[in-house]
């Protein structure tokens, strides 16, 4: 049973066709408010007790001319009575608020799917802007779909007439009218959205009321259409979901909170130094508004300054964090090498995007694994972690802080554009249940006979002590030239360099003893095929493996959160499978690491088009593997 913090659900009335899961995509002009609409539908759907996953797809342009294909903004949601792993391969329902939205999105719709069109926008001018040569409503473009043509623009204007808004303002409620219709279609409650509108437009109650009127009008339209026999509503059973308090959360939020939570568990002030870049900027924005958590944020002049400031902060006893995306991370390489050398905690968050170079900044990719594991001059090992979903960013944020502070090491934490922006339901944890790991700074009592030894190591962790400026007696100097074992003074001595290189490597390798044993997400611990994933491919892999197992295939899903060092048992685990398939949104990177480390004949499944994997793409690859062909279609 689901209850909202705010409202109780209305009981549903009419009998509806029951479906297991549905994929809906809202698409319109950037100005049409599709993201808002999607977010409201998400919340209502969560409240209705379904499991769900979403995928917002923003245009690359800030504000493209109205009506153009490159100004189309879309939001896709997959919800259902079962566990939902991805935002769905192909929409069952497409809402197209204008011709450009139809143009861009139609091809993705499931064959036989429903297309709801606001005909009010299908003027000759708009058709031309969208690049249609003839009117799709009149030619055969829509053959094979169930098409619902509604003049939503006009109906909205009528619905809000009473509120005496300007034409422009009135038309802005179109999205709420549409939402009302979709609420009816899937039997969702409107009250939360109505409340949200009242809050959002607290200073303009006329606008709030108009939007609510539009919402209701859309809903009534659905009811009436059903009565008239033109449409049928659906119902989606509640999913079996772990009981508890939930919220929707994006990866950027979860990461911000996870890092702040980690800093609190470590009993440290956190300094985030960053430089804006898509899709990483949100982390900076969110943390900039969390100063009361002893979080200091710094918009540096560039990415190099950002990482250097973060390292400086760590030197001075705070938790230094920096965040960026691929090209910005590339700029940080030299400084990260210094952090490896001086052995200070540092967290580098990489919200990956499509590359190389500027690439496709608003599109997702997971192609910075090479850069993370290998992308620095000289032997400069560090820890690499990868979050597997929006919500998982919270726990990975904490894990990054734990490892960085316990092992005095940089930690590269990988997210991506998809999970940074997509929200998913999150069972809110009790922060008090997390085990604190407070940092013990070196104190004046650690002053040995020969003075303070900044590179005297803990025998077990091989970690060095952390003495912060301001502590009497522990004055010391560190730097990028090779440091003498123990004292940290400059040493050009050959054996010392070998020893320190070995120690740095051993320290990082030793972390393999301090991370969870690699488990199997689904399936047996050995067998015919292991599908090994990392990052935000978790969703499609887990669903694809689940589906294939349901139809009897011998396939397991292994998902890595610790990329470097790898879990200790991973080699043995992989050796237990005849085949290993590694789907990645890159040209084959983790697969290289696994092959090199374990000499397993792992095969890549690569997708580099800026889009997340479809479940069927992975299912097909699994089938190919088990049918004796190579997994990679290419």
């Amino acid at each position, binding site marked *: 049973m689901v209850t909202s*913090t705010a409202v109780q659900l209305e009981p549903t009335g009419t009998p509806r066709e029951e479906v297991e899961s549905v994929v809906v995509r809202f698409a319109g002009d950037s100005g049409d408010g599709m993201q808002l609409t999607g977010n409201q539908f998400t919340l209502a759907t969560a409240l209705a007790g379904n499991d769900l996953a979403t995928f917002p797809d923003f245009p690359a342009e800030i504000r493209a001319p109205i009506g153009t294909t490159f100004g189309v903004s879309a939001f896709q949601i997959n919800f259902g009575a079962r566990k939902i792993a991805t935002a769905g391969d192909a929409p069952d329902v497409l809402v197209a608020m204008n011709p450009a939205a139809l143009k861009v999105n139609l091809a993705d719709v499931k064959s036989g799917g429903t297309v709801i069109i606001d005909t009010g926008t299908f003027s000759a001018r708009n058709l031309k802007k969208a690049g249609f040569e003839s009117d799709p409503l009149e030619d055969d473009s829509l053959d094979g779909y169930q098409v619902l043509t509604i003049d939503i623009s006009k109906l909205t204007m009528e619905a809000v007439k009473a509120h005496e808004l300007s034409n422009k303002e009135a038309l802005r409620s179109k999205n709420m009218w549409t939402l009302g219709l979709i609420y009816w279609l899937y039997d969702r409650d409107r009250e939360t959205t109505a409340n*949200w509108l009242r809050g959002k437009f607290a200073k303009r109650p006329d606008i709030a009321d108009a939007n609510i009127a539009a919402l209701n009008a859309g809903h009534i339209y659905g009811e009436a259409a059903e009565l008239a026999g033109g449409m049928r509503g659906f119902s989606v059973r509640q999913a079996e979901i772990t009981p508890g308090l939930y919220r929707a959360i994006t990866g950027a939020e979860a990461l911000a909170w996870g890092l702040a939570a980690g800093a609190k568990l470590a009993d440290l002030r956190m300094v985030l130094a960053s430089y804006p870049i898509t899709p990483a900027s949100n982390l900076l924005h969110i943390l900039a508004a969390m100063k009361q958590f002893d979080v200091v944020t710094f918009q540096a*002049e560039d990415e190099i300054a950002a990482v250097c400031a973060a390292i400086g902060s760590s030197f001075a006893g705070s938790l230094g964090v920096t965040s960026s995306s691929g090209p910005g991370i590339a700029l940080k390489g030299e400084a990260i090498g210094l952090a490896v050398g001086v052995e200070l905690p540092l967290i580098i968050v990489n919200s990956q995007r499509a590359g190389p170079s500027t690439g496709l900044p608003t599109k997702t990719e997971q192609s910075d694994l090479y850069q993370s594991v290998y992308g620095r001059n000289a032997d400069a090992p560090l820890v690499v972690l990868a979050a597997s979903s929006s919500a998982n960013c919270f726990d990975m944020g904490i894990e990054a802080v734990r490892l960085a502070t316990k092992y005095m090491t940089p930690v590269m934490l990988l997210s991506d554009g998809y999970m940074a922006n997509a929200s998913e339901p999150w069972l809110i944890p009790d922060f008090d249940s997390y085990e604190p790991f407070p940092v013990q700074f070196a104190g004046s009592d650690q*002053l040995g006979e020969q003075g303070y030894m900044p590179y005297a190591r803990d025998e077990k962790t091989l970690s060095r002590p952390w003495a*912060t*400026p*301001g502590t009497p007696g522990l004055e010391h100097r560190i730097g990028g030239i090779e440091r003498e074992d123990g004292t940290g003074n400059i040493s050009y001595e050959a054996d010392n360099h070998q020893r320190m290189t070995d120690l740095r490597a051993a320290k990082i390798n030793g972390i393999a003893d301090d991370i969870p044993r690699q488990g199997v997400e689904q399936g047996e611990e050995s067998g015919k095929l292991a599908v090994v994933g990392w990052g935000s491919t978790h969703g499609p892999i887990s669903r694809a493996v689940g589906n294939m197992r349901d139809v009897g295939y011998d396939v397991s899903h292994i998902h890595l959160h610790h990329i470097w060092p790898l879990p200790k048992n991973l080699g043995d685990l992989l050796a237990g499978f005849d085949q290993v398939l590694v789907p990645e949104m890159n040209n084959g990177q983790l697969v290289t690491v696994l092959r090199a480390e374990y000499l397993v004949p792992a095969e890549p499944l690569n997708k580099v088009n800026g889009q997340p994997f479809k479940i069927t793409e992975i299912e097909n690859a699994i089938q190919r593997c088990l049918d004796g062909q190579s997994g990679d279609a290419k």
Partner: protein
Amino acid sequence: MNAPAKPTALKAKDFASDQEVRWCPGCGDYAILKGVQKALADIGTTPENVVFVSGIGCSSRFPYYMSTYGFHTIHGRAPAFATGIKLANPELDVWLVTGDGDGLSIGGNHMLHALRRNVNMQIMLFNNEIYGLTKGQYSPTSPLGSRSPSTPMGSLDRPLSPVLFALGANATFVARAVDTQQKHMPGVLQRAHAHNGASFVEIYTNCIVYNDGVFASFAEKNTAADGELLLEHGEPMIFGKDSDKGIRMTPGAIALEVVQLGVDGITEDDLLRHDETNRVLAGLLGAMRNPDFPVAVGVLYCEDAEAYDAAVYKQVEAARSSNGAADMNALLRGGATWTVGG
């Protein structure tokens, strides 16, 4: 070795570390090291609260020779590290050591932004007009036509003036000192330390190996009096062995000129009085070069402004007091939530 218990009044030599100084014999940096150690003793600080941060270059080895905390970072980025240190702990007394290559070539941008942000620290730019550590290539402060391994036919790029650059960067404190002037330097450094914000001090230093004597026209015993103008706020600008030369505004122009006191009826009253608070005047003074003008040393410019790091912590305090105690569980539960029952 750092003794944990400190005597109350430290001497200059108490700020020296146990590491052997490894500059070339005769390098000007030795004198600056002494001057800085003296300044710290004069200020009366303790090593544990002081952090020396540097980039890479001969000059940037400086932190190793101090008994304070120190961080020898990477080439050009010291201002960013120093900013991070101040953001983590604004109570620390941060001194930055950089060179003309470190601070103005690869590191020009970080310098620019540290200055305009007004992060509270002292920035000492050791200007020897050459790359010492990499064996003598010309630097952004080398004069046009400089022959060096990378410019065998002479350099072709117009040099920067560090102080004019700093003024253009909206710096709030700009000063100059000279390696050979051991009496003068600690005072300038003390002023820099007293200033609230980013204090930029250009220090001329002689690279005896790759650029020996470039400052000979004003930095040597017999040339200083005629080659330099010692600035004092509010005082008339007089210089020369016999204190008989002065600087005034060229009548009817926006420019300076050197005049002879007593000649053509010129008296002290005709001379400019130094006004540290006038950025334009500082620019005029900073641009003076031998042989036509004396080189201005001392505090060229000083402006009161809030330091960046202090302002940052004011916001942190304000956020704390307006948002109440930080409660992680409350944060996680803020906004729209829903409950799934058992």
